[in-house]
């Protein structure tokens, strides 16, 4: 339990940094995509915005528990296990969710594509951290 919590916290801090870098990277690399976030559907002036900055810890804790339950079936090197874990998370959780969002909400394909890539990166990075801290 202690290993799950400590690995989850370390992954949470790492993913928080990644998330903030991701926000600025979106502005620098995809300016037209960044402008789409001005749509009132994304209420950046709401107090709920702070919840976004807690999401890395929610994901990391859930993934840390999931890693602890599945690490036995993941074989191979440090990189193989981490990447495979991230891919499993992205395909099982992120991809169907993105599919639903794209079908139901007025968001562009490039926008949801960046969400998928962010989710995949989060899964892989979390997997690599778990592999080191809770092999």
């Amino acid at each position, binding site marked *: 339990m202690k290993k799950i919590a400590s690995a989850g916290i370390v992954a949470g801090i790492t993913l928080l940094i990644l998330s903030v870098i991701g*926000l600025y990277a979106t*502005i620098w690399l995809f*300016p037209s995509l*960044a*402008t789409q976030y*001005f*749509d009132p559907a994304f209420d*950046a*002036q709401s107090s709920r*915005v702070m919840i976004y900055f807690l999401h890395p810890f929610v994901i990391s804790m859930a993934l840390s528990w999931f890693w602890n339950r599945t690490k036995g079936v993941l074989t191979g090197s440090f990189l193989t296990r981490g990447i495979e874990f991230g891919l499993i998370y992205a395909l099982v959780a992120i991809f169907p969710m993105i599919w639903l969002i794209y079908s139901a909400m007025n968001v562009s394909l490039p926008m949801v594509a960046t969400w998928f890539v962010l989710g995949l990166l989060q899964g892989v990075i979390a997997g690599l951290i778990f592999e080191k801290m809770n092999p």
Partner: protein
Amino acid sequence: MKQIKYLLLAATAITWISANADTQNKYTLSKSYTVTINGTSNLHDWDETVGSVSGDGIVTWNGDGSFDLEAVNIKMEVRSIKSNEGSAMNNNTYKALKADNNPEIIFALGTQLKSIPASATGHSISAKVNLTIAGVTKAVDMTVTATGQAHGNISFEGTKTIKMTDFGITPPVALFGTLKTGDEITKHFKTVFVASN
């Protein structure tokens, strides 16, 4: 006795001529207008164009060819504002300007302006204007270039930089606060008023 009669006739004629030399005219805004809004953000500068503008004014022409601006009212439809950044920015503009409750930006001349020369090359005038944005009215000073011919069309052109926060508007942000618009926006307008009576 005859001389007194002539003097009285002359005085009456002068009074009549001078009374009719100043003619008050109603003016309406013609379709040939340009109203733009420019702003900044930490991404890049942005531009918006106001699509629907209406207005009227009252002008008194003086005997010397100059005119007095008695009243000018210009209304701009908030939902006709279109951004070069597309619909996301448009919707954000309508939300920031509280378009549901305040569908118009209103520009009203605050004080009468006297003896403006009707210059074909343009004459710079300082005007006090009551500007209503998002339901908040503020008196602002503007420098406007008035161009016109005696008893003809009059055009006004000017630029004014204002702060959104002065009108109770929070400068829009996006991407969880990382993408920010600047507080200052610049409005540029070019309008032509034509006599309507």
